[in-house]
Structures are given as C-alpha cells and as structure tokens.
C-alpha cells in the first residue's frame, strides 16, 4: 500500500515532515532517555528513511519515549517526533502484539483494559492488574508504597467507572475496528 516506510509514516497525522530531517541530533540531545537507547531519535528517523521497518518496530527504544515533547518543540525543522514515536508504537503494538518486554506490554494492556472496561483508571487497580499480568511477585515490591498511599488516603480501591459504560465501550470498539493505527 505504501511505497516505503517513510511514506507510511508521512500518511499519519504528525508524521508529515519526516523528510525535512537534517540529522542535526537536536532531538537526541533534548531527549531525557536517549542516553539509554540503542537507536537514538535521530537514528530512528534515519532508519525510517532507509526503509528499515522491522528494525525500527522491533526496537525497544520506541517504548522509552516519555512523551515530554522536548524534541518536538526544539526540532529546527518542525518535525513532530513525539507524534512519530506514537505512530511507531501504534504500528508495533498492532503488528507484534507479543512484545518481548513483558513489563511494557503488561502495563499497557492493564491500562488499556481498564479504560476499555470502566472508562476511568485508578492507580491501585492498575498496579494490581499490571502485576498479575506480568509477575505477581511485583505486588510485593509495590506493597510498601501501596501501604503508604493507603494510609495517606490516596488509594481508592472502589473501582470508579463512567456511568454510560455502554456508550464508552461502543465508541472505543468502533475506534478499535476503524483505527488500529
């Protein structure tokens, strides 16, 4: 359907300007997690433009973006790299649902599951779900913090939900069917 990976990225909102990259590295220098990346943001753009779709989508680096938008505001060529990271994550999620990193997959699954079910999220339930999906032993790690939060009245165990769950679930489902990207 697409001539190459670059045109695929360009077809999504936010991906339009990727060809304008001049490889200056401002994105990497502005990124608080690029120090831990195998492929820095600038290199990811290079890889996209070199049509190395699998390398990019399989890379754990795209899941290291914290969405702080520092790269986006500083990019001298107006590339919305945070949005590009979202596009890459969408594609990776859709095509490689069995992600190797259990923590990431587990957390995202838990969060999304909560939203799709209830329309609202609370950290306590999220952490429980997440731990069960990944490694129940984790609950022990979170326990001391959970206790503190509970004591401070900052943990709500009664599950909050939107009232019109039917409506919410319907629009989320329609979006899932349509979009998926």
């Amino acid at each position: 359907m697409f001539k190459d990976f670059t045109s695929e990225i360009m077809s999504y909102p936010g991906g339009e300007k990727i060809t304008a990259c001049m490889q200056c590295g401002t994105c990497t220098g502005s990124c608080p997690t690029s120090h831990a990346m195998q492929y820095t943001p600038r290199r990811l753009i290079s890889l996209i433009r070199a049509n190395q779709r699998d390398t990019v989508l399989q890379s754990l680096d795209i899941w290291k973006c914290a969405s702080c938008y520092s790269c986006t505001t500083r990019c001298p060529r107006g590339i919305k790299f945070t949005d590009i990271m979202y596009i890459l994550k969408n594609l990776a999620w859709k095509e490689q649902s069995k992600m190797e990193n259990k923590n990431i997959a587990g957390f995202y699954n838990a969060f999304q599951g909560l939203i799709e079910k209830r329309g609202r999220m609370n950290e306590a339930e999220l952490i429980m779900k997440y731990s069960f999906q990944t490694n129940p032993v984790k609950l022990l790690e979170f326990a001391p913090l959970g206790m503190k939060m509970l004591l401070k009245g900052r943990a709500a165990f009664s599950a909050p939900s939107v009232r019109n769950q039917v409506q919410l679930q319907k629009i989320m489902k329609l979006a899932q069917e349509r979009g998926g990207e």
Partner: protein
Amino acid sequence: MVAYQYYPGCSLHASARDYDESVRGVLGHLAIKLEEVPDWNCCGATITPSLNQLQSQILPARNLALAAENRGDLVVPCNACYMSLKKVQHNMVKYKEIREGVIDIFSQAGLSLTGMPEVRHLLEMIMEDVGLAKVKEMVTKPLKDLKIVSYSGCQLVRPLGFDDPEDPQALDQLMEALGAKVLPFSQKSHCCGSSLMTTQPELAFKMVDSILEEAKKVGAEMVVVTCPMCQLNLDAYQGQINNKFNRTGQLPIIYFTQLMGLAMGLSKSQLGIQRGIVSSNKALEKIV
C-alpha cells in the same frame, strides 16, 4: 460567581485526592464555581495514544463533547489531561479525517459534538482570569522565607502549552505573589518520567533524581508542582530513589494550589497537605 467546567481527571479522584481538595478549597475561597463535567472519562494519558491513535482521539473528544453541553471554559488541573484534551482539539481543527472520523463514530453511539469548549490548565486560568493582583490581595499569610523551586513539568508547557516551553514563568510569578522565595531552577520543564516509572523505572528514577538533586542544590525547601503525575513520581518514589542513588535529605512535593490555600489562610487539612508521602510539616513550620 464565575463558573467553569471542571475536568479533574482520574488521579484527582484517587492518588491525587489532595490536589482535588486544594483546588476546590482555593477556588471556593476565590468565589469561583467549578462544575464537574458530567460522566467524564479518562483522557488516555500517554498510554492510549501509544496503542491506538483513533481511540486516543475518541477518549478526550468524548469529554469535550460532554463539556460542550454546558457553558464556560474547561479547566483542567492535570498536565497530562490538559495536553491530551488540547491536542485532540487541535487535531480536530487541523485534520479533517480525524474530525470526520470522530464525528462519525460519535453519531453511531448517540453522541454529538456540538462545539468545543476552550481547554485551559488551572494555572493558566488563575494567571489570566484571576490575575496576580487579585491573588496578592487575597494573601493573608504570605509565605515569607519559604524557599521553593517551581516545577512546571513538560506537558503544561509543551507542545501546545501557554507558557514558555523552555523557561516557564507563570508558576514562578504566582509563587512570588504568594510571598515565597523562588529559587532559580534549570529543571523547571524537564520530564518526571511519567509512566516509565512503572514500565522502565531505571529510566524514570534517573530523571526524578536529577530534578530532586538540582532542587536540593539550589537550596529549595519544597518543590511546587502543577500535575498529579509529577507529584506522584517525585513524592512517592523519592524514598526508593534516595536509596538507589545514596542521596540524603527529603523534599516535600506540594501542589501550587496547596500553597495558595495556605497563603490565603485555609487550613492544612482542608488542603490535603497531610497526604504527602514526604511530610511538609517541617518546611511549613515557619508559615503555619
């Protein structure tokens, strides 16, 4: 009484209950009425956009649709919710396919998008609508000698925020109006790591550590925040981070509304101040 619509977001009903308490306390004190958007849903934060773009438009758009049924600007206290809502609004104006996609899906679920309210962060509303002059007028207990750094975080100022994305000024000005001593702080709009705290804590720990260490170095007694995510990461994980990097000293992380409330003479309990994991009692000794 001026009325606004209020989108608290999930955290303010759970882990950031103290923020919600102080927002309601302070705005009530300023005679500003908040009407919570009926049956609002989660904005999707940074998670839904990572998985499904259309869903990430749908979630905030439903809130905008619900809010559009009433009058008044939509006030949002959480940086992440603010950015999500504002971005979807921006996208719906800019991208025809997104706008039409959302409207079509809504129509199948009996939702209509009659308009979109102006989305504003709580801090933005206070700075622009209440104004520093009014704030100063309301201060009864100036936060004299309280040394703070203001930490705006990222999504308040980027990419569609209302303040300078590199060197935000609003929070500094507001804190000065309360009488606090605002210290120079280079980490003002650096990132707290958001959800990386759960998925890849080794990355987020480092980010929070550099924020806290810089704050300690400049001599801050407190870090003032505008976002429940920032608060949680800086406050709740501070013990673990201190252990990991062998740091000493603890810094209370306080919401700007809590300090506003204190300066305006509201009680600590009314503002949820006791809910901080790192206690702020010592730092607040001299003013309360």
